[in-house]
């Protein structure tokens, strides 16, 4: 049975501390560029701050971690890439971006409704000496290519290698936990195998409070969100739907 890695992010638990963002950047050797802005930076994991549009005592806010949703069906970015630099991995369900194949046309970025893809506008650079702190097992991307969340596949690699060395075929789930999941201080991000009915994550994914953003587009994202607050769940729709709900 093939694995389908996915996440359930409990928005009620997210305090917006940003640990996931930093841990992700450190794990994946994202360069700290002084000139990068909120629109040109590289944030494979990005926590967004969203309010219910009210003011004063009635105002509510929620923090929404946005990463690649690893769409399972008609994955928008896979079909558009002209040279097979994007792939939905058969074995794991991870949507995979190959920077070394990418020609930087950015068609996939226009295709992604979640804006979870990022372009290397600059050559990656580190302050003098800091390249020694690069994480082994993750290749640094060059200027002019697209990158995104690969579910920390470097960790999947070492898990596989460890299993192989121990003569096992299947990896030990404990060995493969993405950086953001590991970093979350409130365990708001749950990671697991959606194809496995008994996996807590696939159970969570079917709870009444669970939802996915822009579900109706029909791309079957594998990153679920959950919240007890109706106004937060309403955010899954388009502007129009939310407006309608807000009345």
């Amino acid at each position, binding site marked *: 049975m093939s694995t389908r890695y996915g996440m359930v992010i*409990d928005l*009620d*638990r997210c*305090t*917006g*501390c*940003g*640990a996931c*963002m*930093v*841990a992700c*950047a*450190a794990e994946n*050797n*994202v360069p*700290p560029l*002084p000139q*990068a*802005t*909120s629109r040109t*930076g590289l*944030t494979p994991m*990005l*926590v*967004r*701050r969203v309010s219910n549009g009210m003011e*004063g*005592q009635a*105002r*509510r*806010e*929620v*923090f929404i971690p946005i990463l690649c949703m690893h769409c399972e069906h008609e994955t928008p970015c896979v079909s558009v890439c002209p040279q097979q630099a994007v792939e939905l991995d058969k074995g794991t369900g991870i949507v995979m971006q190959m920077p*070394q194949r990418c020609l930087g046309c950015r068609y996939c970025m226009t295709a992604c409704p979640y804006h979870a893809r990022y372009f290397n506008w600059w*050559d*990656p650079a*580190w*302050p*003098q*000496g*800091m*390249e*020694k*702190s*690069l*994480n*082994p*097992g*993750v*290749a*640094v991307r*060059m200027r*002019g290519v697209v990158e995104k969340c690969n579910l920390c596949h470097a960790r999947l690699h070492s898990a596989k290698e460890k299993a192989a060395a121990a003569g096992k075929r299947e990896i030990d789930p404990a060995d493969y936990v993405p950086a953001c999941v590991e*970093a979350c*201080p*409130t*365990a*708001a991000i749950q990671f697991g195998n959606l194809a496995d009915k008994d996996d807590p994550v696939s159970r969570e994914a079917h709870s009444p409070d669970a939802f996915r953003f822009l579900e109706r587009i029909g791309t079957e994202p594998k990153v679920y969100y959950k*919240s*007890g607050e109706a106004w937060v769940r309403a955010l899954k729709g388009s502007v129009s739907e939310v407006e309608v709900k807000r009345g």
Partner: protein
Amino acid sequence: MKITRRDVLVWGAGATAGLVFTPVPWKLLSDISIWTQNWRWIPQPTHRPVDVKGSFCTLCPNGCGIRVRMAAGWPVGVAGVRSHPISRGALCPLGFAAHQLIWHPQRLRTVRHRRSTSSWDEAHVAFAKACTEGPVVIVDGYPGHAASSLFEAFAEKQRGSYRVVSGPEAQALTPYETWSGVPATALGYDLENVRTIVSFGAPLLDGWGTPGQFTRLWAERAAGAADPDLRLIQIEPSLSRTAARAWQRSAIHPGGETALAAGIARVLLEEQLVQARGPMPPLTLAQSAEQSGLSTDAIRDLARLIVGRPPVVAIASDDNPSIAALNVLLGAVGTRGGIVQKSKHAKSHLPAESELDSVRAVLIDSSVPWDFVPQTDAEVFRFAAWDGGSSKADWLLPAPGFLEELTDIPTAPTSAIETYAIASSLVKAPPGVQSAAQFLGRVDPDLTPVDKIIHTRCEALFRARAGTLCAQETTPVAMIPSVEKLEEQLQSGAVWMGEPQHPGGLRCKLSEWPQATRSECPPCNSLGTWRAPVLPPLASKLYQESSLREGPERRNP
């Protein structure tokens, strides 16, 4: 025969035609695109093996447990440690990129005297001279760690004095010290057992105390529930990230905390919602309503809500005595789930600000926040690993940075349980770097060096045979064969945890409602108790590449 222009053309045509049938164009096409995949100016990580070392974060007094991934002798990643009894696997966002700080562009590498390059010898001469001429003050940021006792010993011998700069959480505990006589450093919050928390602007979910501790508790016992087991009531003028996630929230006028505390106290006493019978605050309910910006009814409801689910504790963001007094009324002092005494042998310290005139020199340890500037005309020796800029200090002395120095980690300020840990130095400090303790050790060779002090402390722990050692599995100290074994385990990331003290024995005598004082320290910023003057470059993403946090502005050049 002469070569005509036509010949050249024809020859060229032939050569071009021929070239197509050689590897040249095709191989070049391939190699050039491979070249774009391996640009020489783009650094790549090392091939060397990775091993994981257990240690502790020294960037704030809370000392969260960390796992450091090391390759080729350098740290390449930081993660939390689940088995740590207080931080419980969590780190603040800044911690996850802290290993970059070694390479921070603002790293201080040379001794500077009034902004011009100088040498350690000159600094020594200057400081030794100062010691002979008059009293010196040593300012420490992490009271209770091994270097602290070295500082104290030195100050004593030099007829100087030892002062402490404590963070907002610790300061919030000072009123109880004045009323009970128990030093603030011996107090802590019994968060594990509390069921209602009234936070007067304390950033509980935003780097307050040991970041992992409360957020994890809140996530397990409060998050998302309509009527949670742990009620978090946030009283704050603005919609902070804590307020945004709190169970209940009251927006009050800025600075209205004191008045509101008084108002709530009055309601509690008038409606006899608590055992205490006094003291009654001077403010009438109307006055406190007017000053806090809540209606009198709102204050009444709030008071009733607070006592609705004991045990309850009020947490202030600074040393506001009215809020402390409210805790006394609520019976939250010296009781389960309230403010408890964690240790018997903690000392109280002079705050760094108090009388600094007629002092010859001030030596500031690198653990002291960069923005602490002593109000004195004495000669200032400032130790720091990073140059935060615009320093008034006469001497800037490069200190070891993150992971570079052997130090021990005493109990975290807010913790209710005593802990002890050792952060061994995993990385060789750059040349020309010296800690304040080493510096003083050279001035006065008779001082016991830090490693010795740590060893004696381990011996003390071993002899006491109390508490447990938390690593992957927890083992009672009594089961550990030798002090060497104990020290070795501590060196490799284990944490010693003392037995929880019986909450009783802490009594606050409060005859009259305290006068409102000007609060000394500003409320914590979103950096929590972060002490380094710079941020890890990657952490600045939070400010620079997302709208997640507003300010402080990126602190890197």
